[in-house]
């Protein structure tokens, strides 16, 4: 034990003003640094556009301000993109709703017995690993080529993370907590609502964060194969691509990415609200 080390760690208490300073610091970290990273990425995009790509090839990644100007400042284009985005959003949300509802039920059923897990999990994997493309005519035959089929595609794309993470959450429930309920002879429904669901919630939210993006992709994929009814952003992306409209193409991509981020952010916020007070994963 040397003198120096002790001197080194003689720590003055945080001064009174530090609370405000810390908050300021946290604002900086919460918003400033992420914005700095965003700026960096935008800078990189411009670098690619203007330095890496020769003029002829600039359509591969058009300048961002052009993308914004053409896609979002032009009223017609903006309306077109936002309308299509809205329709995709509806599909994605309906799909996600069913994914969450069905996925959690599926997981709860599987968690209730090992043989059920072993019997059912493989089909969940198949559902996830199956190329949707291959099922298009069959699904079209049953569900038509419109809203229903698109929602189903979205569910297929986004249900598995919910199942896997809910199941993980259910299996991670502390044995001591289970004992507590067993001891008092709690009914399965009560165990579910008062123990299993709350305990699995942080995990479920992780599943939701994965499914957020997956549902958007699912809606876009569904758009691609099932084109009856109102066109969504997937159709628009296809269209812009075949019409070589790079700016609008990237505009549509940005719009659908933002949709993914918004859904993701929503669940992050919800998770902080619901589990932040007791589980670290909720404290972003």
């Amino acid at each position, binding site marked *: 034990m040397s003198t120096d080390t002790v001197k080194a760690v003689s720590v003055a208490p945080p001064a009174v003003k530090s609370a405000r300073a810390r908050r300021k610091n946290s604002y900086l970290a919460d918003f400033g640094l992420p914005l700095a990273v965003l700026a960096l990425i935008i800078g990189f995009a411009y670098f690619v556009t203007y330095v890496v790509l020769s003029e002829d090839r600039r359509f591969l990644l058009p300048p961002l301000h052009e993308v914004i100007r053409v896609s979002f400042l032009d009223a017609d284009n903006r309306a077109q993109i936002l309308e299509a985005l809205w329709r995709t959003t509806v599909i994605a949300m309906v799909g996600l709703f069913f994914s969450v509802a069905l996925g959690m039920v599926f997981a709860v059923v599987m968690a209730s017995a090992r043989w059920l897990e072993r019997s059912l999990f493989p089909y969940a994997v198949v559902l996830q690993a199956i190329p949707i493309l291959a099922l298009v005519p069959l699904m079209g035959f049953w569900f038509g080529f419109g809203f229903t089929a698109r929602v189903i595609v979205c569910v297929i794309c986004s249900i598995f993370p919910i199942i896997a993470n809910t199941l993980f959450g259910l299996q991670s429930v*502390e044995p*001591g*907590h289970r*004992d*507590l*309920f*067993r*001891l*008092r*002879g*709690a009914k399965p429904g*009560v165990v579910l609502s*008062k*123990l299993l669901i*709350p*305990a699995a*919630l942080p995990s479920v939210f992780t599943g939701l964060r994965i499914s957020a993006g997956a549902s958007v992709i699912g809606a876009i994929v569904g758009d691609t194969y099932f084109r009856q009814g109102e066109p969504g952003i997937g159709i628009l992306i296809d269209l812009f691509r075949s019409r070589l409209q790079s700016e609008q193409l990237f505009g549509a991509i940005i719009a659908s990415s933002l949709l993914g981020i918004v859904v993701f952010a929503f669940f992050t916020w919800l998770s902080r609200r619901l*589990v932040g*007070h*007791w*589980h670290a994963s909720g404290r972003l």
Partner: protein
Amino acid sequence: MAVAIPETAAGLRFVSTGMEYPDGTVALEGVDLDVRPGQFVSVVGPSGCGKSTLLRLASRLEHHTSGEVAVDPHALAYVFQDATLLPWRSVKKNVALFCELRGDGKADIARRVQEAIDLVGLTGFENHYPHQLSGGMRMRASVARCLTVDPGVFLFDEPFGALDEISRQKLNDDLQTLFHAQKFAALFVTHSIAEAVYLSTEVVVMSGRPGRILDRVPVPFAYPRDPQIRYSEEFAHLCARVSQSLAGKEH
């Protein structure tokens, strides 16, 4: 091995009960023990001898591998060795859990919960979450949870081990009052010999692993017991006897 269990049995009964964990650890061997309503049996024994296992068998959370166990599983309360509070529930809601499970009315729950919280000295911490409590406070919340349900069989696994002597003595007295009033069957694991003698109708001394019953020390004091009996000669005598049994000495 079919030992007849008397039909009139209530409370707890172990008949040459043994328990071997799947990994081969033999935790208990040939335990014969009866705890009837109105009996308060304390168990003392070296760490790892199978005291918690005994309580887990009594609660049917674990299953014995030989002999028999009979227990009235209704109105069973069990203070686990760990506090096992639900981290997403505040103290108040944690204490309310058993009442909720029983389906009590809201007002009734609120009253019972507040009484229990006051009893264990957690007043003012009703809305705290478990991670905001000290170790002893967590155990007290856990005890409070069990105090809300008027149990017929009450299992305690070192409930007051994490408490200072003063809190401990207060809770001992409160528990004794409760026992005297409700006459439940109590099986109480503790490392404090004085606590065991002060509370119990009988102290059971267990041997090291595999746990067997080494000695049974009946405690003749009548309830309610005056805290002052702790300083009586008979009390000291009983403690000494338990202590000697524990140390493996014949008496």
